[in-house]
């Protein structure tokens, strides 16, 4: 049996059928060595067992995706006026949009919580963000095509910008523009 020793600590055993968790090597501490920083212990620190970081979706994203999945359950005539069920293409592209925009700016996740996340009678999905006097509503059509309407009511007269055929990156730009507005000087 071969043992490997690192800095005087048993780091592992070659040939063993099971491996015990790697013991934390004792740092070469003496009375004169004091930790002033977690990085001050030197190279032996790298021998610590590393945990894999578990990636968690922001809460806002989890909520939004749950609402999108809820829309997928709507049956025909869900609005009482002959609306069609929400198309799977609209669901998929709405999820992609939400994932991308919320994960791109995780620190803005509260501002990026959709105000409206609703089905459209044509089988699409409409997502709307509102921050102060600005809003943007993005329509995800049944085939996944995006369009948006940006509204700014901060001035005397409202301003509108409508894009009937937008790319996802264009939609994300205008969404983040609305979300970031309160943080600008």
């Amino acid at each position, binding site marked *: 049996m071969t043992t490997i020793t690192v800095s005087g600590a048993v780091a592992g055993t070659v040939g063993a059928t099971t491996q015990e968790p790697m013991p934390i090597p004792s740092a070469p501490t003496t009375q004169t060595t004091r930790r002033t920083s977690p990085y001050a212990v030197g190279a032996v620190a790298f021998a610590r067992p590393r945990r894999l970081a578990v990636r968690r979706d922001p809460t806002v994203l989890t909520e939004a995706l749950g609402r999108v999945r809820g829309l997928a359950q709507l049956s025909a005539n869900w609005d009482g006026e002959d609306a069609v069920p929400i198309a799977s293409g609209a669901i998929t592209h709405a999820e992609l949009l939400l994932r991308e925009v919320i994960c791109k700016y995780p620190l803005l996740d509260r501002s990026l919580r959709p*105000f409206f996340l609703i089905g459209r009678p044509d089988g699409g999905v409409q997502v709307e963000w509102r921050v102060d006097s600005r809003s943007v509503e993005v329509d995800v059509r049944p085939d996944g095509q995006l369009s948006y309407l940006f*509204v700014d009511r901060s001035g005397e007269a409202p301003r509108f910008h409508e894009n009937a055929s937008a790319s996802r990156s264009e939609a994300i730009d205008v969404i983040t523009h609305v979300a970031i507005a309160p943080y600008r000087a």
Partner: protein
Amino acid sequence: MHEDVVAIGDDDDLYRLIFPDFVRDGVISSAAYQRSRMPDPAISVNLARLTTIEATLAPQAGRGHYLGVLPAAIPRGLGLTVEHDPIPGNIAHALIRGATTKAVCEQLAFATRLTGHRATLTD
């Protein structure tokens, strides 16, 4: 023109039924004025003076629709037409014609006020 058709004045109020999900915290989504692919080119409303709140809400009984009220002057100010269009069973039916953009639908929704009345909801 049908003999029962009446002129709609700017000071007339129009009732619009609004699906519950299209209202949040008193705010009405532009979706309330959209139907199929894009903005509804002929938006169904009821002329308030020819009907009642109860009669307008009745077709959506059990669904919890809100009732919004919109002065006829608003769509006209946006360049739309408002005309009486009585249909069998609903003498108060009227149409707002010409809404072709989401921006127009947003302005209609923005100007619509909730009456505080809702259709009944079933469990």
